[in-house]
């Protein structure tokens, strides 16, 4: 506090001096300006130049004075000259200031500021000390400051150690649990500074204590949070030096915390990439936005034993009093990578299998149909009617088998095709599909009730397949009605366009509606309605790949409605 007052005094003196000079210069410049303006053409540039030089001179003078003043202040720092500035000395010099200074300290509430004698006996007490420690001045003055310490600290001689540190170095800084009068504990942050007499001998100490329990709680919560995170998390400063690391980091990398705190974060990075990482780190410090690290590239980290493993890293900047910190959450994705590789392998096998199914299963069918045809054509005179009926059954079943294979392949392809989204007119698409279906099967007599159809965004070829499947289903299952009616429409619901196709056909039993969208599941006999039970499964797959939903409503002999949604 003493030094601060001195600092202030010197700064004021310096400032006043500079201000005086500044005023002089300005006055002179102003008078110059007058002369110049009245003195006709003399270049105004010159005047500006003169002013410029003047301003520079003033600035130089200001800086020089300030530097001088500050260097003066520095000389009052302990221990050498500081010995003159102890309590006694100050009161000799300036009794008014000393009283004010005492009163000021006594009134401070947020800091306990006390004086100790050279053996640690408490000599005075302020409001802050009362507030933080609970003792009244009269109860505590004359006691040793070790009463604030826990009994364990006292047994371990901590108070003495702190004092002797302050004795040796002039100052001791520490943090720890301290005890209030009522026995409760608080987390204190303490600075003890040695005071010197005129001969440079220590004659006491100032002790400033701050209650940082709240801050400590927040920090503890933060550490607990850090430790509860599923990922290894390290916090580094702007220079990339590790400040904190959680337990998961210790487990993942095989380092103990004290081995890595204070080290550059590059210890986790493969050696060949370290220099590049330092560069990237600087970029991040400038942009400082939450983001994933190395999006789209495979990142690897290095354990203490030198082994590498794939990781995913998410970075977030934290603004703190100490400057910007960066938190990096590091996730070990070894297992995920293994699964991905496995999945790729399975998919490749599945493709080979699908191809094989399409070729190998079809070949014998071709033989059956082909040779049955030969029988029918070349041996028709030798076949009686029953034999001809049998050959036709053979062909029908074989054709059905062929369709099942085709549909199954189609279904498996639906799950693999890439979805390419584009905007399209549902209205145009639906009309096109209706024309195609009615044209293909020469269907007449259906009453089409086409309501409003919202435009949509999706993969045009697969969404078209959805409409083909739903509309041809509606046609198929209502064709036996005397007056088939098919209604198609849409509405908007919570960010989704809902589309539907309703018919007044045979409908279905609602208790089986979960089976509708499963592959090869049918709710009608094949001799009543042809089909393989793949159409709705394909619909379900396409819509789910568009992040939409499908559902159905129906009643036996009264009709069915099929609904699907697409995000808008």
């Amino acid at each position, binding site marked *: 506090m003493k030094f601060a007052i001195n600092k202030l005094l010197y700064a004021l003196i310096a400032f006043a001096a500079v201000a005086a000079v500044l005023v002089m210069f300005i006055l002179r410049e102003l008078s110059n300006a007058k002369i110049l303006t009245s003195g006709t053409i003399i270049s105004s540039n010159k005047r500006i130049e003169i002013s410029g030089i003047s301003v520079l001179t003033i600035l130089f003078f200001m800086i020089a004075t300030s530097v001088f003043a500050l260097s003066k202040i520095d000389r009052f720092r302990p221990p050498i000259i500081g010995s003159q500035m102890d309590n006694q000395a100050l009161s000799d010099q300036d009794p008014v200031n000393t009283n004010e200074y005492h009163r000021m300290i006594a009134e401070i509430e947020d800091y306990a500021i006390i004086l100790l004698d050279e053996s640690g006996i408490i000599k005075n007490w302020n409001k802050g000390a009362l507030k933080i420690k609970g003792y009244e001045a009269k109860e505590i003055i004359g006691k040793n400051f070790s009463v604030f310490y826990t009994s364990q600290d006292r047994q371990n001689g901590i108070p003495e150690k702190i004092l002797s540190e302050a004795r040796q170095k002039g100052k001791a800084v520490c943090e720890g649990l301290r005890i209030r009068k009522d026995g409760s504990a608080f987390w204190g942050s303490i600075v003890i500074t040695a005071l010197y007499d005129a001969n440079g001998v220590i004659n006491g100490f100032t002790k400033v204590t701050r209650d940082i329990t709240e801050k400590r709680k927040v920090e503890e919560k933060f550490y607990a949070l850090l430790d509860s995170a599923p990922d290894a998390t390290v916090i580094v400063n702007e220079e990339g030096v590790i400040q904190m690391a959680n337990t998961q980091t210790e487990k993942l990398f095989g380092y103990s915390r004290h081995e890595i705190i204070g080290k550059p974060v590059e210890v986790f990075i493969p050696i060949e990439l370290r220099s590049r990482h330092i560069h990237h780190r600087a970029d991040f410090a400038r942009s400082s936005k939450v983001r994933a690290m190395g999006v789209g590239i495979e990142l690897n980290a290095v354990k203490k034993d030198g082994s590498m493993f794939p990781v995913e890293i998410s970075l977030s900047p934290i603004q703190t009093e100490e400057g910007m910190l960066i938190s990096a959450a590091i996730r070990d994705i070894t297992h995920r990578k293994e699964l991905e590789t496995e999945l790729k392998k399975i998919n490749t096998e599945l493709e080979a299998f699908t191809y094989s199914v399409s070729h190998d299963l079809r*070949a014998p069918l071709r033989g059956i149909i*082909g040779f049955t045809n030969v029988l029918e054509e070349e041996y028709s005179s030798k076949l009686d009617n029953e034999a001809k009926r049998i050959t036709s059954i053979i062909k029908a079943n074989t054709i059905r088998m062929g369709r099942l294979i085709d549909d199954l392949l189609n279904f498996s392809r639906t799950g693999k095709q890439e979805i390419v989204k584009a905007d399209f007119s549902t209205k145009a698409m639906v009309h096109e599909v209706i024309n195609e279906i009615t044209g293909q099967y020469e269907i007449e007599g259906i009453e089409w009730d086409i309501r409003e159809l919202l435009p949509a965004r999706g993969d045009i070829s697969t969404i078209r397949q959805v409409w083909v499947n739903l509309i041809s289903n509606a046609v198929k299952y209502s064709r036996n009605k005397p007056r088939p009616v098919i209604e198609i429409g849409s509405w908007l619901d919570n960010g989704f366009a809902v589309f539907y196709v309703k018919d007044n056909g045979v409908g279905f039993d609602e208790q089986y509606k979960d089976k509708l969208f499963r592959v090869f599941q049918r709710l009608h006999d094949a001799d009543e309605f042809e089909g393989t039970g793949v159409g709705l499964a394909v619909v379900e797959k396409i819509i789910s790949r568009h992040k939409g939903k499908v559902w159905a409503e129906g009643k036996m002999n009264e009709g069915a409605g099929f609904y699907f949604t697409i995000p808008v």
Partner: protein
Amino acid sequence: MDPNSVEILLVEDNPADAELAIRELKKHNMANNLFHVRNGEEALDFIFATGKYADTRNMLYTPKVILLDIQMPKVNGIEVLSTLKSDSRTRQTPVVILTSSKENPDIQKCYELGANSYIVKPVNFEGFAEAIRNLGFYWLLLNQTPV
């Protein structure tokens, strides 16, 4: 049959498919100068007059059209096709691909390699005639013009 007078070379490993194709073509009197080989390796030997055809064949007498199955053991149709289309002596010979499904992704690959047309099996005359028409030398084959 004189191996140098072959007009249609059928490359097909499945005997049933081969027989059905030959029957169909026979019905339309087109199998007289047809020769059947059972795999891609044999097809290349025949066309380039190598291996077991080294003594009986002159490769200057190329078939007028090659019907080529895609899926075959050892050397498959795609490999045969790419060999034919990358050799200046055989590049001009039309190749019709035989496929078990028109949705076979290999069809696209075959076109990229220079296949002239494709027929979905079982081969019937209509499909074959259509393929020949697509080749633009319908008259050449059907009119049995001399080489």
